[in-house]
Structure formats: structure tokens, C-alpha cells
């Protein structure tokens, strides 16, 4: 038997990631299991996607043995080790992964074996890398110029020229960085949370904003989970002082509810139910 592509427990040290092909020749995916993230590359464009714990573990388990069928029960216990979830949660995660791999129609990459489980098609595994690449999270977080440069420039005992040179260099880097900030594409990070049959997808500009959104919306999520009947998928965004809640319908259309941030805990059940319809 071949050595697994991903060890069952990732060792500490350099970030290990897998390069995976997708259903589109223009698109490749790097999977960082230890960070629960995908880095989607399309030409010069890069997009970071936060899979969340369950989605990442699901993909990780499939990639431990590409070409080998993994039962639904095993996938569910691996992706949700500390709780029991319904089949709908697994179906939803598989569907989301297929979308990211441009595989929702062909189903060539994550293959369904009726009554047996799922397998990851080994032809779509490009390579495994254990080098230390630029982690996806850091690739979108520009560093601020350090204040120590100013301190050095003001120190009288030394020649001023190195400090001035450093100051100019920092200024140029700062200007370049600010230009880059303005021009870089606004890639949104996502995270999926689950309560029973309800999946809440958060979207925000980066991981820190996701953390904040997850923390702030915990109460709303509990309420929605108690009001929801059957499997539901929701998407939540916060922008410009407002939350935007999208309730997905089976027709792929959405109901939406927008509310000011200070109304987060003041929404009526009736409004939430109307969205969940």
C-alpha cells in the first residue's frame, strides 16, 4: 500500500500542502490541511478560502488515500469527531467542495460510489509539497512599516545617511504597499459553521474579521438553528455597519434580510422565519 499523501496527524514544522487539479484547466488549488484553507490560483489571481474544520477534515480524509473508497460513516466521524451530524451535513460539504473544484456537474474529482462512499480521483492530485511556502493567510496581510525606523533616524550619535536611506526605503515600501492595498482584489474569506442540519457560511475580508463575525453572530446562529425546519444553508456578511443574511432556497435563489449591526439581537422570530422559508 502506498504511503498516505497526508499523515493522519500533521506533524509540526513546515507547512505541508497539496497541489490539486480542478475541473477547470485554468484553476489549481493548494490545500493546506493544517490551516483548513485552500488557495485557489487562476492565472495571476489568487483566492484564499477558509474551509472550516469539517470541510477541511473531509477533504483531508479523502486525500489520505486517493482512489480509495471512504465510507460515509467514516467521513462523518472524521470530519465531525465530537458530535453526531445528519447525512445532510456531509452532502452539503461534499457539494461545497465540488463547487470549489469546478466539479459539481461532472463529479469526476470527488466521486460518489453508491452505497459505498466517496473517493478522491488520484488523477487530480498534482503534487505534495512540504516546503515552507508563503502561507495563504500572510499573502493578503501587508506588513505595516515599523516605527523603529523613525527612532533610528532621530538618533544623533550616528551618521544620518544610513537612517535617511532606510527612511526613504521604508517610505517607498510604504507607498508601494498602500498602492498595492488599493489595487489588490478584495478576496473574501469564508468559514462554515454547523448546528444540526443548519449550515451558516460566514464571509469577511480576512480571518480576523471572520473570528469577530463568528463571535458576534453566535446568538443569532443559535436562534436560527432553533427556528429552522430541515436542512438549511445560510450566508452571513457584515459590511458598512450592516449585516446581510442570505437564506438559500432549493431553487438556488435566496431570501435576504439586512439589518443594522445594533439590531443583531433585536430581530423578531417572524423575520427570521420569513428568511428561512
Amino acid at each position, binding site marked *: 500500500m502506498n504511503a498516505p499523501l497526508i499523515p493522519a496527524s500533521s506533524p509540526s514544522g513546515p507547512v505541508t500542502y497539496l497541489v490539486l487539479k480542478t475541473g477547470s484547466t485554468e484553476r489549481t488549488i493548494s490545500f493546506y490541511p493544517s490551516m483548513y484553507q485552500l488557495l485557489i490560483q487562476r492565472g495571476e489571481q489568487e483566492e484564499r478560502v477558509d474551509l472550516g474544520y469539517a470541510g477541511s477534515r473531509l477533504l483531508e480524509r479523502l486525500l489520505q488515500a486517493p482512489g480509495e473508497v471512504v465510507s460515509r460513516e467514516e467521513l462523518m466521524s472524521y470530519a465531525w469527531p465530537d458530535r453526531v451530524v445528519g447525512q445532510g451535513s456531509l452532502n452539503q460539504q461534499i457539494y*461545497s467542495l465540488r463547487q470549489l473544484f*469546478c466539479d459539481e456537474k461532472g463529479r469526476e474529482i470527488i466521486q460518489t460510489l453508491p452505497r459505498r462512499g466517496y473517493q478522491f480521483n488520484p488523477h487530480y492530485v498534482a503534487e505534495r509539497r512540504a516546503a515552507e511556502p508563503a502561507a495563504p493567510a500572510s499573502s493578503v496581510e501587508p506588513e505595516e512599516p515599523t516605527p523603529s525606523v523613525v527612532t533610528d533616524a532621530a538618533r544623533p550619535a550616528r551618521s544620518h545617511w544610513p537612517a535617511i536611506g532606510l527612511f526613504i526605503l521604508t517610505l517607498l515600501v510604504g507607498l508601494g504597499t498602500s498602492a498595492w492595498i488599493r489595487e489588490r482584489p478584495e478576496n473574501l474569506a469564508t468559514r462554515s459553521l454547523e448546528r444540526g442540519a443548519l449550515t451558516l457560511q460566514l464571509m469577511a475580508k480576512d480571518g480576523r474579521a471572520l473570528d469577530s463575525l463568528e463571535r458576534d453572530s453566535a446568538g443569532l446562529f443559535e436562534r436560527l438553528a432553533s427556528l429552522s425546519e430541515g436542512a438549511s444553508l445560510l*450566508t452571513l456578511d457584515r459590511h*458598512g455597519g*450592516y449585516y446581510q443574511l442570505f437564506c438559500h432556497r432549493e431553487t438556488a435563489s*435566496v431570501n435576504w434580510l439586512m439589518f*443594522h449591526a445594533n*439590531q443583531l439581537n433585536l*430581530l423578531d422570530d417572524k423575520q427570521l422565519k420569513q428568511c428561512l422559508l
Partner: protein
Amino acid sequence: MGYQPTPTTLPDGRYRSSGQVQLSDGRLINAVHSIRFEDGRFYALSRQADTLLENAGLVERDGAHHRLAVSHGEVTQLASGMDNELIFSLLYSRREGAHIRLYQIGECLYARASLQVFCP
């Protein structure tokens, strides 16, 4: 479903949606968003309570997304008591040169900067 960071085909035809907005003072207003895409251009009309926003321009490719490049816009009536954030979004959306990126949510398009949702 959900937010899909995948490239989308150039939108075409008419999209619309309606929903409710709960303002900072707890008032609930109805909102309707409508947009028509045709030959790389867009024409959009939004109504939030008594306020109408009309804008038009070009649809541009923006990496994995599309964006609305506003060339003309007008807010015809600004209801008193609207939240500052909503007013800002409306005024930004009518400004010539404004760029509004579209995110795909299910089959709908979410204009995040202007807080508008358009569904086929």
C-alpha cells in the same frame, strides 16, 4: 450554493430581489433591487422605503469577479431618518467612477459595497 469565489459568466438579462431592512432605530423598511445587464452594460434601480437609487454603467471583469463601473447615478428622494451607512452606500453607488464588485451568492449577485442583491 453559498458564497462561491468562482468565476462567473458575464451576467445577462434582468435580475431582481426584494427583502427587508431593519434600520438602526428598529424601523423595518421594504427594499427592492432590480438590474438589467445588456451588452456589457447595466441599468439598476433600487427602492428602499421612499428613496430611489438609479445608476448605470459598464460591467467589467475584475479578477474572479465582475464589477459595476458606475458612469451615471441619481438618488431621487432621500427619506428622512435613514441610517448614515445606508445613505453613504446610496450616494457612493450613484457617483461616477464608483466600482462595485459583485459576489455570487447561490445564483444571485451581491453588490457588497452598495448592499444590493440581484437574483435571476
